């Protein structure tokens, strides 16, 4: 075997109330794609940040034979700068005092081409869809020719086609001798693209396997330390009209929607399939009443309760410096059971938070820690738990399992199914076709702001959906 490119020995990192990483050992070799998997809060991001040198370990050593690059779980891009500015920030080509813009653009194009990525170096990052932003993140690291590249959940927001091309790039990089570690919750990806996989649990690396010799189930069992919860069964329901959208037109520009007609009935899950950036956000915002629209959005019963799982949990769903208990009250502050006159009933809110913690297995030191300190997946569980806790008539779920581990994802899916079985109308917007296929009673495909096809669960055609999503009819 060649010399390892990165060696982690006895790494430990404690935060108040939790040991995030505990005596972890890991070696990465040039040319390998190494998957790091584990439950939410297992310590994957923390370990990556330590390997990168961004977080200081309490104990242990990190040794790297060359530059280390890290693509964060949350993008670290500057939205109001152009692509080339983001990619070359800190390494700008110069001509005298000024930046040589022409050279910068061609350099970005060259790196992109070498790695098989298509990009417009002049575009402003904030105008790009998430998948393309991910490419920018990757380009920034690729430009530095890292010997070791750490990728923290790079595919969480990507559409299936984007994932394939993403891994093509990564494989090319590995073939050129880079050592790559990729954190992910999508175990199929692990099997399909990684060479080895390490499993983290409670801060420790508990298993290491060659992917050729393992399976999704075995990895999942190692992660959870037991069997996976199975998704709740689909019960027979008598769907009745609930949410009805007619001639909806909203938003502007690329993500506007037009001429949308959609019914979601009580007791069914309607899935919206589509590649990100085709108007799903606009549709969800219109239904949630967050943006103005033309047309009608009506609910069968007056004062219908809507539980919303927004797209961006950091910005739209949570108050990051607040405690779990306070976040559980957010949006529910006027509910009769939570209020006593002009004041809030904190004891009740705490009980709710406890219930969510139990139902969704939220891993947190206490219910009073700021949600900022929770791992991404645990934050998402709180968002989902809060949306479902009041038994809403309508559930608006936007990528509800993004960034959460397989066990928790199964749990979330179960809860959505249960809500449906109990008579809620569930609108599920997801970029994961598998998720939609597993949960939805009916599927609508969105492309360029319109609904271009509808399928009943009984006669889905995966291929047809895929073609519609890609704009082919």
């Amino acid at each position, binding site marked *: 075997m060649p010399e390892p490119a990165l060696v982690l020995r006895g790494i430990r990192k404690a935060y108040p109330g939790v040991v995030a990483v505990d005596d972890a050992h890991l070696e990465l070799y040039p040319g390998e794609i190494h998957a790091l998997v584990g439950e939410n809060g297992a310590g994957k991001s923390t370990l990556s940040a330590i390997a990168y040198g961004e977080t200081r370990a309490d104990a242990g050593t990190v040794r790297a034979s060359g530059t280390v690059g890290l693509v964060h779980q949350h993008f670290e891009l500057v939205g109001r700068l152009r692509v080339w500015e983001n990619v070359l920030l800190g390494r700008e080509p110069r001509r005298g005092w000024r930046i040589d813009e022409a050279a910068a653009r061609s350099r970005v194009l060259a790196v992109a081409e070498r790695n098989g990525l298509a990009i417009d170096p002049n575009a402003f990052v904030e105008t790009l869809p998430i998948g393309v932003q991910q490419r920018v993140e990757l380009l920034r690291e690729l430009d530095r020719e890292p010997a070791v590249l750490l990728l923290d959940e790079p595919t969480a927001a990507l559409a299936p086609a984007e994932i394939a091309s993403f891994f093509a790039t990564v494989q090319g990089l590995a073939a050129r001798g880079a050592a790559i570690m990729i954190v992910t919750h999508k175990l199929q990806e692990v099997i399909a693209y990684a060479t080895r996989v390490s499993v983290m649990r409670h801060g420790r690396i508990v298993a290491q396997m060659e992917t050729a010799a393992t399976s999704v189930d075995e990895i999942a069992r190692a992660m959870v330390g037991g069997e996976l919860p199975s998704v709740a069964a689909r019960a027979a329901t008598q769907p009745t009209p609930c949410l009805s959208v007619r001639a909806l037109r909203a938003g502007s520009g690329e993500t506007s929607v037009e001429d949308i007609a959609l019914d979601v009935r009580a007791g069914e899950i309607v899935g919206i399939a589509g590649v990100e950036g085709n108007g799903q956000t606009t549709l969800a915002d219109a239904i949630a009443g967050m943006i103005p629209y033309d047309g009608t959005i009506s609910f069968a019963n007056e004062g219908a309760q809507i539980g919303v799982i927004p797209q961006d949990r950091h910005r*739209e769903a*949570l*108050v*990051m410096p607040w405690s779990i208990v306070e976040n559980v009250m*957010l*949006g529910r502050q*006027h509910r009769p059971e939570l209020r006593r006159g002009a*004041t809030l009933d904190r004891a009740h809110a705490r009980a709710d938070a406890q219930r969510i913690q139990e139902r969704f297995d939220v891993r947190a030191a206490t219910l009073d820690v700021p949600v900022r300190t929770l791992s991404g997946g645990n934050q998402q569980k709180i968002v989902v738990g809060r949306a479902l806790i009041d038994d809403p008539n309508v559930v608006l779920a936007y990528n509800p399992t993004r960034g959460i581990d397989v066990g928790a994802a199964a749990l979330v899916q179960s809860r959505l199914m249960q809500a449906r079985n109990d008579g809620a109308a569930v609108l599920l917007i997801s970029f994961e076709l598998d998720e939609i296929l597993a949960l939805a009673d009916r599927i609508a495909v969105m492309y360029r702001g319109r609904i271009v096809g509808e399928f009943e669960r009984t006669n889905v055609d995966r291929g047809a959906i895929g073609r519609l999503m890609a704009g082919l009819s």
Partner: protein
Amino acid sequence: MTNMRRTLAGPLGAVVLLVVLMSLAMIVAGTSPLDGFSALFYGALGGRSQIGETLVATSALLFPALGIALAFRGGLFNIGAEGQLLIGALFAGAVGAQLHVAGPLGIALLLVLGAIGGGLWGAIAGWMKARFNANEIIATLMLNFVAAYVSLALVSGPLKGPLATGAETAWLDQAYWLPTLLPGTRLSIGILLALAVAVVLWWLFSRTIFGFELRAAGDAPEAARRAGIDIGRITWLSLALSGAISGVGGATIVTGELHRFNTQLSPGYGFTAIAVALVGDLQPLWICLAAFGFGILEAGGLAMQASAQVPKDAIHVIEGLIILVLAARRYVAARAETTAV
């Protein structure tokens, strides 16, 4: 090393650092630190009338500091407390000098007028923010200047007291004077009102739905909007309330101490109060403590100037240092904790 860090980190460390810095400032000025400090503390706390002056300053700072905290909690940088205080005082003074209502009702009327005046001034900025998304830092700042000039124009013109030699209204009727709290001093019961406001604010922030929505709007505006909170309403309401609290502060200066409106009734309480609010961590009860600390400096500073020849401006330097040191102490403490595990 670790031990030293730990000591430095505690509030004790902050105090030690401050004393050292202040002593240095005094030595530069040619005053012995011993004289300086004894003058400061004697001047602030050395007797009934000294304590009275300290508490007068405390009360004057507390109102605007609480008002500022309310707005800041809602994510709105209200740096217009000075103008709001002035307009509140103007309302109280102008009406008090013209209209005669006897008894506690009269005093209550003036305080309410103060709240209305300050509230109105705050609401202008709030409305501009809600309606036009106008930056509230700038709006409140500009309104300070407008308040100063407009009130000056009014009290040197139509509202000027018949006997006044300066730009001020007539004396208020004795019936309007706030009762004295500490006999023999200028300390009025206004300070009790300030403390009551602090308690109400504490309750508002920590218990009520409005406080919850206010904090949400301040800490995560988009999440708050999606939680069904009307951000526009919170914006103008919190700026109006914030201004109202400062306005009541202005009215208490008028009814409690000056007994008339004068354009120069505040030496910048509204600005110092920003520091008070922030040193008090935007927590009403801590703000009370911070206001007392600054009250000691304001009152003690005067005496220091009188008996130890330390110019009054030295107190500003000291106040500035205190703000920086106290604000930094939390960081130092946090550092000590993480590195000392």
